[in-house]
């Protein structure tokens, strides 16, 4: 297990280097943030001065060397737009996104797993197709569209819920629903297929031979096994959610890292963009590693190897 983790960490480091390099050069291709900071009638002189002030005037390769040198020491530069260390800006906003994600996953699972079980139990029947349709509906709607519709219905027309911003529990409802609908289909599908596989297995037959009740057979013997693949999806889903948060956070004016990333692109805030993508990758990698370790505890077969 230790060797496994060590290997994963090494792989992660390599990945990060790749990601950092790609982001750096891709970012530099996209133009100078100075253009977005100056008014349209600025003089060339003002432009040159500002470029220099921001340290964007050297050759790209030199800039890259400086970036790498600093990055090794954990310094990912200052946000150009906010004049704040980029790492700090990221961690300022990270909690706001992290408070959203567990609820979204929880809601996604609460809807997706029972739907998957029901679909598996009634494979091929009307219920199966109905459950599948409901789940797929979640990925069939663009989330910004869903978000805007939800705001229109629940906050403007009905006045039940606030339309945006962070705040009390009520503020969480719509963003969490928007994020979760996206996950239901995934959870439902994997639960269904895992359940189908498990339900045909010999050990379930043996459980029945023992005379266990159907409830125990399904919800204990089958589901516990079916949950293993569900768990592996977590890593993927958290990654998706962090990316998906871009849209949701924009629609609901949620000051999280999704929104921050989008702003970094739009304002050409290179240091911030680099920092955000690198830190996000670290986040996704560690969540995946965490899920794998957790996986080992749920599935005893992996624990030893």
């Amino acid at each position, binding site marked *: 297990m230790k060797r496994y983790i060590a290997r994963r960490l090494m792989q992660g480091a390599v990945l990060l280097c790749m990601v950092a390099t790609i982001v750096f050069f891709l970012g530099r291709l996209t133009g100078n943030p100075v253009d*977005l900071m100056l008014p349209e009638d600025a003089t060339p002189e003002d432009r040159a001065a500002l470029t220099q002030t*921001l340290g964007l005037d050297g050759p790209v390769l030199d800039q890259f060397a400086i970036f790498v040198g600093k990055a090794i020491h954990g310094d990912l530069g200052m946000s150009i737009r906010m004049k704040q260390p980029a790492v700090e800006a990221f961690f300022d906003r990270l909690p706001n996104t992290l408070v959203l994600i567990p609820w979204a996953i929880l809601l996604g699972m609460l809807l997706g797993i029972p739907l998957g079980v029901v679909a598996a139990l009634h494979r091929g029947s009307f219920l199966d197709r109905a459950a599948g349709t409901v789940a797929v509906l979640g990925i069939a709607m663009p989330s910004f569209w869903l978000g805007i519709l939800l705001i229109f219905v629940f906050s403007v027309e009905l006045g039940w819920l606030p339309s945006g911003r962070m705040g009390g529990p009520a503020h969480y409802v719509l963003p969490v629903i928007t994020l979760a609908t996206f996950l239901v289909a995934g959870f439902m599908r994997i639960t269904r297929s895992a359940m189908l596989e498990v339900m045909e297995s010999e050990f379930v037959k043996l459980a029945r031979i023992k005379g266990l009740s159907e409830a125990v057979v399904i919800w204990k013997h089958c589901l516990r096994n079916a949950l293993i693949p569900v768990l592996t999806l977590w890593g993927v889903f958290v990654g998706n959610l962090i990316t998906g948060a871009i849209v949701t956070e924009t629609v609901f004016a949620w000051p999280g890292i999704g929104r921050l990333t989008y702003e970094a692109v739009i304002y050409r805030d290179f240091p911030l963009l680099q920092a955000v993508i690198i830190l996000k990758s670290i986040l996704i990698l560690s969540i995946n590693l965490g899920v794998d370790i957790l996986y080992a505890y749920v599935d005893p077969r992996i624990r030893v190897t």
Partner: protein
Amino acid sequence: MFRHLVRTTALVVALAVAAAAPVRAQDQKGTLVFAVESLGAQTLDPILEGRPGNAVYQAVMYDSLVGFDLEKGGVGPGVAERWELSPDGLTWTFHIRPGQTFHNGDKLTAHDVKFSLERQMGPGSLASAAASMRRTIKSIEVAGDLTVKVQTTSPQIGLPASLSRAVAPEGAIMPKAYIEKVGEEEFRKKPVGSGPWKFVRNVPGDRIEFTAVTTPHWRGRPHFKELVMLLVPEESTRVAMVRTGEAAIASIGPETMLGATRAGLEVLSVPGTMQAIFQFWGTWRPEVKDSPIAKVRVRQALSLAIDRKQVIEHVMNGKARMPYPFATFGYTDFFSADRWKKWADEAYRYDPALAKKILAEEGYPNGFELKFANTALPGTQFMVDIGTAIADMWTKVGVKVTLKHYEWGSFAPLERGDQAPLTGWASMYRTAGRPDAPWRYNGAFSPDSIQRLLGDKGNCQEACQEFEKTYRALGSELDRAKRTALTDHMVEVTANTWTVIPILEGMGYYAINTKKVGQFAPIPGRHELGDVFERIPRPEQKPWKK
């Protein structure tokens, strides 16, 4: 008798209390929530923020050396009550309004003004005009507590305007003693200004909170107790928040206006905030010589093909106006506005028949292929819609429009260097509403400017030379009448080249929940509300008229 006296005294006391206390309590109360699409850099240090952000949220807590004409728009008194130019044109003297204080109690003096201007020009400043200021300002002297003298290297007629928030953010006045005492870092965390609102809290990516000053302020004493500015990037969400009352005011685009009105919201429009224009790139270059757009009359025909009234009515929902010539507005300084208004109404009319005729005469009876870059500058996303609309109108007179869309960040780099990607193209562009026309003209037409739409140093022909001459003359002309004549001439020379063609004069738009705020008027030409909040009444004080 005694009893009577007691009773009277009690009554008097009660009345006095009743009179005094409620005044205080009623005077400032409630929270004014403003939802805005962008909070810029969201920093409270003026030297780190550009113009729009400064005008949105820094303006509420900082005063500018030169202020506004609240009625007409353009320049007016600010921290300085008045200013004058020495006869040689090299020294501006600013007379500071007495009795101003910063939020920490310090008096605002000439020292703060000198400090602030120098800080704007200093090395750590991201002010867009920092370099220009360094070049033009020779020295800044404190001539008494309330007098500042600014010496310039050459006559700078436009200096006061460039220190007015009507034009630029560089005039923001910061507290010298405070910054020197606590240092820059601390100042950025706990900023202190002299405006009618005090800083409370800044939550990055979410909001900035202010509280009203309780003492009288020359800009006006706020009617609300708190002011919260929310960052809500998605427009439909902003409108939803105004509808639900989560926000009182939200910035919107013209496309949302109709919906907001139908939903029972008040829609406020700020006249003269920008001009949407289209312009032709590198028409003077030899390689474009044979291209249709190198011909003045073809360019004019393209303008005649645009039905501006339709665009105003349907794209801008009626909340826009026929434009003046390029970069000029009703409030433009030293400018014969009425004359040009008449001229523009004629010149910018819709005459597709004439347009087709001209095209035929110029040898394009079947139209030609026009490459058109559609783009929108930050904050005016509707420019894309205008571009789409005029491209369609050109199609209708037989021009084959090749439309390419650019996000602003990728368009801006194209106009620099040899402009190869843009040469021979037409594109959407914009000019912000500000009173000094020459500055903007210089940026568009000067042979050493970035855009150099009439020619560059190596290839400056008739119109280009004429512009150059007029602009130079304007730089040192102190006489009002002559200055106006020169400005008019500059406008005429360039307008007749049909290289930069206004489409419409745009406005700033706000959706307002009338249950949350009372009626107020914006400052003409000033899109952002940063200098307006203190004058916004509570709904019970001045209800909106239906």
